[in-house]
């Protein structure tokens, strides 16, 4: 892991500089509808540093998720787990556009978002394996990854709840005038639960700096979202209910995600209120470790694999003239980090039983009586 801190520092640095450029762009009015990003062959608004930060983030997620799957096959991952293979670009794009002190909130399918904010790989893998080195010391499990130090304010396993909670964080930013943004990731299925509606309305009325990001991967658990939703775009077609513009983007294109995030953050920081963004994407594996994904029509996965955000971005980098050895070098470097994190996690002991009796209360204890 010797290279990791530096790598993270580098990525964070570029994230910050890109965030700075988003600050500059505050002056521009937020466009009503974000157009599909057009790839220009010349270098462009995103720039090489940020592209490499995006690439690293995509790779970190991809390799950690694949490793999580391997570890599951080795029976080392306990409980359930929900991989984000195929959805990396949403996490990478948003996190790279965030400032370090922005807050993000996600679901049980949250490895990618937690990693993308800078949480350590062994923190994620260790938690999945129920080890002491886990982000939550094994107390939360795979569905609750959190790293407050990195602004990753929790993974929430009951559908809907974290939308109003993310809104609450945005209230702090507004009240304290800190310029922070709160970003909330959730699935297509989540748009049909009551908390979605309440959070969107109140955020809009209070003009809070919160960005709601729907990762539309076409399915709730095993049921296609179209079978249970009255509109075609579960988030996009509902934006108008909250006085918001419809924004539906290609969630497998890290650049498009990044640009959309920048625009939404600029709007939020300018005091112009929330955004609701639907990212079209697809999960390559089943809903959770137990699910082979049989309910998918034949050919669907294959079609989406052609739009896999990772090879797609590899090509993008090449198109922008980034040297192949830089591209591949980063890949190898990240893989080495994942190997190292795997070893750290395997070597980490199960959490001590003394952990059971701490941290219900702020005083560190669990006593409900004197």
């Amino acid at each position: 892991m010797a290279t990791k801190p530096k790598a993270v520092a580098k990525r964070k640095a570029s994230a910050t500089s890109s965030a700075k450029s988003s600050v500059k762009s505050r002056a521009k009015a937020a466009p009503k509808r974000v157009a599909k990003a057009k790839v220009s062959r010349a270098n462009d608004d995103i720039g090489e540093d940020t592209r490499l930060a995006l690439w690293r983030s995509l790779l970190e997620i991809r390799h950690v998720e694949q490793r999580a799957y391997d570890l599951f096959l080795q029976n080392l991952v306990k409980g359930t787990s929900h991989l984000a293979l195929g959805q990396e670009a949403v996490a990478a794009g948003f996190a790279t556009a965030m400032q370090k002190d922005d807050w993000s909130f996600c679901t049980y399918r949250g490895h990618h978002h937690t990693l993308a904010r800078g949480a350590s790989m062994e923190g994620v893998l260790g938690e999945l394996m129920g080890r002491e080195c886990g982000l939550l010391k094994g107390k939360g499990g795979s569905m609750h990854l959190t790293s407050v130090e990195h602004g990753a304010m929790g993974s929430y396993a009951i559908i809907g709840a974290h939308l109003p909670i993310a809104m609450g964080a945005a209230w702090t930013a507004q009240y304290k005038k800190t310029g922070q943004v709160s970003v909330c990731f959730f699935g297509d299925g989540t748009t049909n639960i009551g908390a979605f509606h309440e959070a969107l309305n109140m955020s809009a009325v209070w003009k809070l700096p919160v960005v709601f990001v729907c990762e539309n991967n076409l399915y709730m658990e095993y049921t296609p979202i179209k079978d249970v939703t009255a509109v075609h775009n579960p988030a996009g077609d509902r934006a108008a209910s909250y006085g918001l513009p419809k924004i539906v983007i290609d969630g497998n294109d890290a650049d498009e995600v990044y640009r959309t995030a920048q625009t939404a953050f600029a709007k939020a920081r300018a005091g112009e209120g929330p955004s609701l963004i639907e990212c079209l994407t697809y999960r390559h594996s089943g809903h959770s470790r137990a699910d082979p994904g049989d309910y998918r029509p034949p050919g669907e996965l294959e079609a989406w694999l052609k739009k896999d955000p990772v090879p797609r971005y590899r090509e993008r980098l090449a198109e922008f003239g980034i040297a192949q050895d830089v591209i591949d070098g980063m890949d190898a470097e990240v893989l080495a980090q994942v190997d190292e994190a795997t070893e750290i996690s395997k070597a980490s002991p199960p959490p001590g039983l003394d952990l059971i009796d701490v941290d219900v209360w702020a005083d560190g204890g669990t006593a409900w009586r004197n």
Partner: protein
Amino acid sequence: MAELTYREAVAEAIAQEMRRDEDVVFLGEDIGAAGGVFKATVGLFKEFGPERVRDTPISEQAILGAAMGSAMTGLKPIAEIMFSDFLAVCWDIVANEIAKARYMTGGQMSMPLVIRTANGGGSRFGAQHSQSVENWAMMIPGLKVVAPSSPADVKGLLAAAIRDPDPVMFFEQKSLYPIKGFVPDGELVDELGTAKVLRDGGDVTIVALAAMVPRAMKAAEELSAQHGIEATVVDVRSLVPLDTQTILREISKTGRLVTVEENPRLCGWGAEIASIVADEIFWDLDGPIIRITTPHIPLPAADALEDATMPSAERIVREIVENID
């Protein structure tokens, strides 16, 4: 007698009742085409079709609202809430609407419905997918509350719940889904409000529910084999109606009560039984009432932590040996 798993018994009970009565319908998330996330409803969609076995959006209030509205107008719905923890997102419909409708309307409304849900810990799912919340339901006047511990009880009690004219909260303990047991062939309908004495012993009465029942039984064998302590084991099965006759009788016989509860300590069903005992058969008691529960904390996820937290057979043995002379 066929050997069935606990999860298979769920589907068998529902199928039995749906064959018998066209008004029985079933709804929930991923219950149909997918057969349920715990595979407890496999085959129903195929046999009864999408009109009677309905997949829903992630809208628990709508699911239970649909159950309530259809129950009061002539159907007999069974609604699944995937994990019992999720009852919190639709608790208003359960506690304020379904439970109160008949009484508040002076008896005008009927509410023949069942809410099935997967309850409890042991799967390393963490604090939001592992709670034992049968006491949430027991607290609310107007709900019947059932929690079976074996495949045969699942089938018989679920069938009884579906036929019952009142709303029944049916807690399936998810750690029990894989267990196997013999289930009588043919139509099986048990009776709500009846506890079962699973073992007879003169020294102490262990009162347990759901996944704690096999653990209590294991502890009782151990107590007998290793410590010469003979325990009666009562499986409560139904918290409302509560079979106080059987429970009080069995406690009076031994003079000692130990409850084994999977829920966190405060206001668990064991507290209620303890308070009934301390009132009604106080003079029959030969010593303190012991409650063995999960400590009053959110359930931790890692296997070592979770196992150390939930009541185990060893802990039951230890506490009884230490406390019962």
